[in-house]
Structure formats: C-alpha cells, structure tokens
C-alpha cells in the first residue's frame, strides 16, 4: 500500500512497471491475477475553455492522511493484495499525468471495484485544489464532476 505525492512529472506506466517488479513480485508473484489502473491526465480544455497550465495545491499532511485512509478503506472492503496512489502537485502542463490509482487482486471484480472506489473517494475527500491558467487569466476549479 503506497501513497506518493509527487512534485515532478511522472510516467504512470513506468511507475507501475517498477512497482510490480520491486514490490508486488517479491511478495505476490503468481498471486495477483488482476490489476485495475486508472490514470488521469491533464486536459487542455475544461468547461469549454482552453487551459494552458494548472496549479495543483494541497494540504500537506492531511492529503497523505486521507490517501492512506482511503487505501485502508478499500483494503478492508475488498480482498486486495495491494494498492498504489500517486498524485501530482504543483505547476503542470496539458498532457501531464495528474493521478494514478491501482488495485491488485486475485480476481478482476475486486480489482475493478477497488480502483473505482479509490479514484471516487480521492476526488471527493482528498484535499487537493486545481487552479487553471486560461488564455485570459486564471480560475479555481469550483467542484469535481460527479462520477
């Protein structure tokens, strides 16, 4: 169960490759039949406007606490081998990865439901805020789109 709040650009796929090799395989090689992954990427448009950059603010300490809490909730609710949550903070550009969640399980149903839970819970409770830079000025994103 790993949580990472990341100030630099990251590659979700390179992180997953590394995490499986270094963490999952030594513990669970041959046991995880299923991994479900969600990767969220910065779009260059939102609500009809072009977005040229984005500043991601968070509440250090509380963010970690809630990502751990959410991961523990998923682990209690589904039979999982492991979970991973990575979230970018700071200034980012369109097409930069923002968030990665992954859930490993013996079976696919649990992996799918847990990954969906992780991203929905993160979006509704983890204290992150997005400020978009538009062609003219900037604005705080008012709320997340419901699932």
């Amino acid at each position: 169960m790993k949580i990472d709040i990341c100030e630099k650009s990251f590659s979700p796929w390179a992180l997953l490759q590394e995490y499986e090799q270094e963490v999952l395989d030594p513990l669970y090689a041959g046991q995880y039949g299923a991994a479900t992954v969600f990767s969220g990427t910065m779009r260059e448009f939102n609500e009809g406007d072009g977005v040229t950059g984005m500043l991601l603010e968070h509440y250090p300490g509380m963010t970690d606490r809630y990502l751990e809490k959410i991961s523990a909730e998923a682990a209690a609710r589904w039979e999982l081998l492991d979970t991973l949550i990575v979230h970018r903070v700071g200034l980012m550009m369109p097409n930069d990865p923002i968030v990665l969640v992954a859930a490993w399980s013996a079976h696919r149903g649990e992996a799918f439901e847990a990954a969906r839970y992780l991203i929905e819970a993160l979006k509704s409770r983890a204290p992150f805020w997005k400020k978009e830079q538009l062609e003219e000025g900037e604005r705080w994103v008012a709320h997340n789109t419901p699932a």
Partner: protein
Amino acid sequence: MIQVRFFASLREEMGREGVELDAAVATTIGEVWERVAEGKERPSNLLMARNMDYSDAGTPVSDGDEVAFFPPVTGG
C-alpha cells in the same frame, strides 16, 4: 493557541495563509470561523478540518489544535 489555516480560493479571499488564535476565545470550529473571518459569512459549501480530520461547525476545539477552512476539493 489554535493554528487556523486557509487553502485555495479561500486563502486568496482571506489574503493570508492562516492566523493564530487564542484558544480562550473559541470553543467550536464555528466560533473559530467567526473570530477569524472578519465579518465574512461562512460559505454554505465551506469544508472544515480539525487536526486534519473533516469536522463541522459544532466540533469542539482546544488549545494546540490546527483548524483548516477550505472550498470543495478538486483533485484527481
């Protein structure tokens, strides 16, 4: 003392990241808001945390607590 913190658009509206409040002047998070908000009405969608746990206006506070106010979260 109670450490009070503001985040995101609220931090900008308040014009500061936070403030220290004498613990004697507030017993709940709602009272903390009234002491620090300089007359600003509490937004209906305001989120509140005490020691990094979501709380509400009625949550008691005490000396040494960290209280945070912020708008709806928009991560992910």
